[in-house]
């Protein structure tokens, strides 16, 4: 089984580039150049320097003793929350901004859900002196306010997306429309392993540093570079793609993807794409997505803005279809409780997205001798308001 993208941009049955002609020249330019750019030693030197000195990599692989005790196993947290700007998203934005510079683009656009990708993009733009416009659903601007202010402080323009459910899908639509209207000078920094080929592959490559480091760190700590489980949350799936990447061909490593069940998969308020989705086209890619019988995209729901998306990246649709990864649907309530749990046990307040990955521990029959790597994709500062406002609702038992 091959988990890499083929030359046409497919992972098995999923992927491709289903885009209107207006986007074709830009997407083709990227497709023709991205590998050559990424493989250029000068690019790699600049990228690796920035990851080390600016982003703060490698991020620690931390043995979470009290969490391990609770689950009676061994759990390592991959601390992506300790990256500059507080999430894994910056691994990708630093990579893409360097690509954009080499393509001579001086205007950068992005979509954001939780605001972490928006902040990471605004940060990279400030660093490089490039104009930055971030599209964000109006609902998300409200629930992730601190990140809106951070983007503005960094000099970015935040444009509210007011269509649909006013969340990540709608922000992505608006960013794509911006690119259609500004095809010459603009690069679109997509924030996850979604979108038309080559985006899913490019973003996965930039995020693959996560599993590359995990392998080395785990080897140093345990003598083996392979854990028994890798757990990550999936919105579009970029932190999961990065955490799984170098383990894909190691069949003995179980790959666990935590999706957002929202109020429950049968509640009508959910974002559990592998449970509720069917193959279709969203944002230029053939993948699993939540849709009506008529092919209209369904508005998702999750407490976590970063997972509130009706599709998943094509690589994950493929991992799901082939059974290589196991998908678990985690409710708002479970995630909320896991966030509190991690805060109390380890002194780490996780992002609501990452909290879904923690809840997966409850659904796995873990053994004492298992070695679990849990990708802690981001920190919870941005979610403090939600943690305060909804405590009584979720912590009542």
């Amino acid at each position, binding site marked *: 089984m091959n988990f890499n993208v083929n030359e046409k941009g497919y992972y098995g049955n999923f992927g491709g580039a289903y885009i209107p002609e*207006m986007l074709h020249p830009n997407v083709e330019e990227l497709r023709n150049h991205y590998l050559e750019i990424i493989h250029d030693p000068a690019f790699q030197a600049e990228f690796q320097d920035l990851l080390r000195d600016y982003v703060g990599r490698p991020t620690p692989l931390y043995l979470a003793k009290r969490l391990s005790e609770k689950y009676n196993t061994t759990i390592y947290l991959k601390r992506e929350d300790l990256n500059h700007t507080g999430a894994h998203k910056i691994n990708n934005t630093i990579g893409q901004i360097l690509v954009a510079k080499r393509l001579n683009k001086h205007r950068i656009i992005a979509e954001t859900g939780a605001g972490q990708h928006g902040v990471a993009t605004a940060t990279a733009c400030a660093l490089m002196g490039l104009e930055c416009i971030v599209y964000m659903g109006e609902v998300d601007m409200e629930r992730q306010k601190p990140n809106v202010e951070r983007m503005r402080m960094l000099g970015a323009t935040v444009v509210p997306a007011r269509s649909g459910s006013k969340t990540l899908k709608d922000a992505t639509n608006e960013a794509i429309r911006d690119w259609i*209207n500004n095809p010459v000078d603009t690069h679109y920094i997509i924030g996850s392993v979604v979108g038309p080929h080559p985006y899913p592959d490019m973003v996965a490559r930039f995020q693959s540093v996560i599993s590359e480091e995990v392998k080395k760190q785990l080897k140093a700590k345990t003598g083996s570079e392979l854990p028994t489980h890798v757990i990550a949350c999936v919105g579009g799936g970029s932190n999961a793609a990065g955490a799984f990447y170098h383990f894909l061909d190691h069949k003995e490593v179980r790959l666990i993807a935590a999706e957002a069940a929202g109020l429950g998969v049968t509640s009508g308020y959910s974002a559990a794409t592998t449970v509720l989705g069917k193959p279709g086209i969203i944002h230029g890619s053939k993948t699993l997505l939540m849709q009506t019988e008529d*092919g209209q995209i369904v508005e998702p729901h999750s407490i976590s803005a970063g997972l509130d998306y009706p599709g998943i990246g094509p690589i994950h649709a493929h991992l799901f279809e082939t059974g290589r990864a196991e998908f678990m649907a985690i409710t708002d309530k479970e995630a909320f409780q896991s966030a509190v749990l991690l805060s109390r046990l380890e002194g780490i307040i996780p992002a609501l997205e990452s909290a879904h990955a923690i809840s997966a521990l409850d659904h796995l029959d873990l053994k004492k001798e298992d070695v679990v790597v849990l990708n802690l994709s981001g920190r919870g500062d941005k979610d403090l308001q939600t943690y305060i406002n909804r405590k009584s609702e979720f912590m009542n038992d």
Partner: protein
Amino acid sequence: METQPIVSNRLTSLFSTGKKNILNVYFTAGFPALDDTLRILRSLEKSGVDLVEIGIPFSDPLADGPTIQESNMVALGQGMTLKLLLEQLREIRKEISLPILLMGYLNPVMQYGVEEFCDQLGSIGIDGLILPDLPLDEYKAFYKNAFERNHLSNVFLVTPQTSEARIREIDQESTGFIYVVSTDSTTGNAKDISGAAPYFERIRAMQLQHPALIGFNVKDHSSFSFACQYAQGAIVGSAFIRMLQASKNLESDIETFVRSLRTGQ
């Protein structure tokens, strides 16, 4: 190269007459009211437009600006579906002889089933299909047969950024007209098309095998006649939708709209 066309229908007949100033009007199915599809078609035929594009509503129309997004949402909210649209169109050829194209995004068509969809369009007597997010390669591999056996013209878009080589490839695969997108733009943008003359000239100088119609941001008599200097005709969408939105009397407003586009009066 005079070969027997693989696809022949009302659209190819229209173009074979060499007619100039072709007016193609786009409207969204199920808008303003769910049952307006036929009413609008009748009025457009009576008003003397040359062909029509009926938009299949979609929840996430990526290439469309606010006006058409809104008409899509209204239509969907009123219960429009692809199945219902086909029912509305079922008997259309008993009274309407205009060439009719359907335009829509790929996902609803994929869910319906491509083969089945094309066969349905063939049996109704629809003349062609515009699916902006259908990749050319995919069309060749999976769609072409179903299009051709139903005499459905395919229409692909080109933009100011499309390379000459790709325009030639699109021309090669086309069986209707080339949809020349006037500016780098989503639909219904305020961008003025009068700056696009060099691009229109460039396309005309390529002497493509297929006729060209210019669309996006064609909104009134002046932009329509400007576009017609460079192509066989033009396509009006958002401006027509805006008129429908405000209309108190569809029949007379459609007639006035079309006359004003043609004559400026």
